[in-house]
């Protein structure tokens, strides 16, 4: 790992200030992606601003129809939160299948969303529910946030503070794990609310997480697995790698969506 300067920030404001004064600074959340990247010498930030212990960025609150999760809340905390589980079990299940137990003790929702790995799980939940990402500067709707592989709407110096999820009436996340990394080879998050159904797919597309709008339309009128049986998914633009080509991923999108609908209904 290249040398770097470590700073611990206790608030988002302090983090933003440290970031702005750094030559080439980076926020350090749980570090479960950034540190391996630095160890591989693929990233070399001049300064690391550790926000993992900023209390104002941690915690879960479940109020009427909404779950607000602090950006530095770990996957384990989300997975194990009793109140959240009774209101929004799909989100807890998703968090409980990210990485492994030790990774879940460190990794955070904010870190995952800021990184926007095309095979990460959380982006599917955020886009699949139409959540709102709050930063030290503004609120960003999920539909405006994800801008392709490892690309987001975040500006330099912007710090995610929390994520607000509208709690759906029914939801489910289906993850098919890549055999080596155990990231999502494909993951599908389906959320049904009174007025609409959203379907978000991670792992599959070269453009990162995306909404499968044809399925959303069909499912909005008939929320059954059969409703999407006639739809086809194009393998165009799907990721093709050692673990599966585009047509295999396209197949998984269809299969996992049907399973998510069946499990959510």
């Amino acid at each position, binding site marked *: 790992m290249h040398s770097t300067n470590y700073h611990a920030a206790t608030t988002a404001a302090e983090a933003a200030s440290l970031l702005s004064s750094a030559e080439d600074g980076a926020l350090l959340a749980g570090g479960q992606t950034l540190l391996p990247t630095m160890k591989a010498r693929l990233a070399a930030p001049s300064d690391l601003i550790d926000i993992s212990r900023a209390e104002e960025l941690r915690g879960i609150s479940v109020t009427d129809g909404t779950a607000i999760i602090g950006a530095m809340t770990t996957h384990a905390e989300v997975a194990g939160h009793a109140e959240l589980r009774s209101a929004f079990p799909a989100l807890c299940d998703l968090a409980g299948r990210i990485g492994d137990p030790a990774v879940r003790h460190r990794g955070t929702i904010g870190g995952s969303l800021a990184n926007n790995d095309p095979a990460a799980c959380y982006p599917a939940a955020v886009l699949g529910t139409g959540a709102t990402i709050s930063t030290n500067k503004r609120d960003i709707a999920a539909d405006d946030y994800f801008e392709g592989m490892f690309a987001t709407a975040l500006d330099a110096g912007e710090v995610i503070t929390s994520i607000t999820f509208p709690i759906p009436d029914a939801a489910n996340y289906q993850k098919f794990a890549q055999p080596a990394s155990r990231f999502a080879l494909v993951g599908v998050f389906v959320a049904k609310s009174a007025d609409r159904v959203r379907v978000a797919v991670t792992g599959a597309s070269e453009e990162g997480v995306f909404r499968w709008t044809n399925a959303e339309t069909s499912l909005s009128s008939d929320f059954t697995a059969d409703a999407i049986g006639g739809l086809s998914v194009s393998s165009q633009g799907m990721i093709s790698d*050692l673990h599966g080509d585009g047509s295999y991923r396209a*197949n998984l999108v269809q299969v996992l969506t049907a399973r998510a609908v069946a499990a959510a209904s």
Partner: protein
Amino acid sequence: MSQGIGAAVKRKEDKRFTTGKGKYTDDIRMENQAYAAFVRSPHAHARVNSIDTSAAEAMDGVIAILNGAELTGDGIGNIICGWAITSKDGSPMNMGAWSALATEKTRYVGDAVAIVIAETNAQARAAAEAVDIDYEELPVAASLAAALSDGAPQIHENAPGNIVYDWEIGENEATEAALAGAAHITKMDITNNRLSPNPMEPRSAVAIYDDAEDHYTLYTTSQNPHVARLVLSAFYNVAPEHKLRVIAPDVGGGFGSKIYIYPEEIACLWASMKTNRSVKWTSDRTEAFLTDAHGRDHVTKARMGFDQDGRIVGFKVSTKANFGAYMSLFSSAVPTYLYATLLSGTYNIPNIYCEVLGVYTNTVPVDAYRGAGRPEASYLVERMIETAAREMGKDPADLRNINFIREFPHQTPVIMNYDSGDFEGNMRQAMVAADWAGFGARKAESAMRGKLRGIGMSCYIEACGIAPSAAVGSLGAGVGLWESAEVRMNPVGTIEVLTGSHSHGQGHETTFAQVVADRFGVPIDTVQIVHGDTDKVQFGMGTYGSRSGPVGMSAIVKALDKLEVKIRKLAAHLLEASEADIVIEDGQVKVDGTNKVLAWHEVGLAAYTGHNLPEGMEPGLKEGAFYDPLNFTFPMGCFICEVEVDPQTGKTEILKFVASDDFGTIINPMIVDGQVHGGIAQGVGQAMLEEVRYSEDGQQLSASYMDYAMPRADDLPDFDVLHHSTPCTTNPLGMKGCGEAGAIGTPPAVINAITDAIGNNDLSMPATPAKVWAALNSATIAAE
């Protein structure tokens, strides 16, 4: 409770490992220790025009940056392959020069070009990154097909067409004639996927030069420290043997990959002398993927012919074996004498012919990995016979059964002479345990849930106990493959066993002590096993090829025999009895039919005080032995795998895995079963998960655990491990060896099961979900 042969004694060595007190090479830190990092070629094939170290040398903490010209200039010799193979036309194999630090050309991504020595690991790595090398990229051949194509780049000047050798075994004409008369011929093209061994402990070396004594010490992650010392001394000219001590302390797994003496150990020893510092290097995982010898990587065409009754009449095999960029230490023997000699499998096959083309490519060198040649043979034979049964509409167990060898000794057409076994007995036991008869009902139940269930077996055989020295010498081996042992009984009666075998997970500290406990009835806690240090153990050939039991323990038995003779003679003298009446049991020496007895420590004390010895007896109790095997040993067994495939995703779940093995005599069933478990896991890894993949330009695409799928706990079922033993007839304890069987017998059982489930026999390893799904879809399309 007995602690002797056959007892499931808990391991003596566990306490240090479970409490974090194991001492692995990277745990060692010397005074005056510096750190090495290697500058490695980012290109698979390139000419090295110049090396500019000026910027790197100016960096913090840098002590020295040394290159291949300096290394060869100091007389350090090229890395050799120790087994000479002769081609069909009588010509010797074409061994290309391999310098520990590449001089003119690099031939694979990861080929070391320079070594950086610095005060800290981080400084060494940073400086290695700053070494500026002017490479001229050359065309790349990163696969067998590319290396054998017209106009392929020439990787070594002395290997035209990139051919290492073109070897054969068996009778071609007789085999062709037998196939011409066959009632049915099964033809297959089979690929054996390339693997990375991946012991969890990465390789590491600490090289210590003592300028006052002109003496070197090397701590290293080795399965065979004496072999390391031998080649470092005799071939690489690092130091003469008496000036070089090699210590392999606790070693975290090997699976073959830690047999070889790699460029890094050579360079660290040499750099230690050049800098007069202790030099440590520890691989990271990506470096391990880029430099540890890979395994397998065969492409084979085969035909197996059967008569009207299903009896095999002939088997013809043509294999291309990928050697990588250089010939590693045992590489030449793996696709020849460790592979083609097992092509008879467990079957009576009158005619066999096999030809093997060894091929250089711009990839990591390939050498023995758990099973080494035998998994490739077993996969081929067991896929062929399963496929033949399907083609002929015969029950796969019946077809195997009518072809089983039943009389021993059995001479195959490919060198091996099997001494013992009960092939049908193992198969029947496995079939009962797997409830083979009830499979149809289970398949129907799966179908109700929309799942595809399949069952597959393999009846493998392999050769262990490598090997009779004269025999392997006549086949080209550069070393003898005996083993040595020394047994010392101390004045207080405790015993030290010094062995040339090396334990890196096999539990020798327990099982070897059990052999002593069995002989004398002493507690295993009074027996200490000493291994892994060339200054303590006189010599040894090390641990690989499942040889620690059949060869290593046989040497201990031989030394115990000598010790027992002396103890009997001494006891007879002290107890005034006839030697014939002396009984050794429960740690006491008694005179049969009397109440005369010597406590164990009284024997030791008498031997060492020397006050009252028989006429002509030397004081002390220490005996050594070299054991040279009479034959290979032949572990065999039947594995049955039952799977369920999700047709929508192609995901396969192993529901049941039964292994019934014949390992001959078993010293510790708990440890033997553990070896089988681990072997099965690696076999499942090969069958379903693991593959080293290269891009056309020779970049390794799977060089981390992000892309190389290691078997995890939830990929595997509980295993049913059974035994049905017939003792080996050619070694004193009747042992056959158990370390590799799982890795050898498993892949064909798994693939036979998956192809049974999906109804498409065209499936290559690893059978990933994506591949199984594709095979299912192509089968569906074909059916439509």
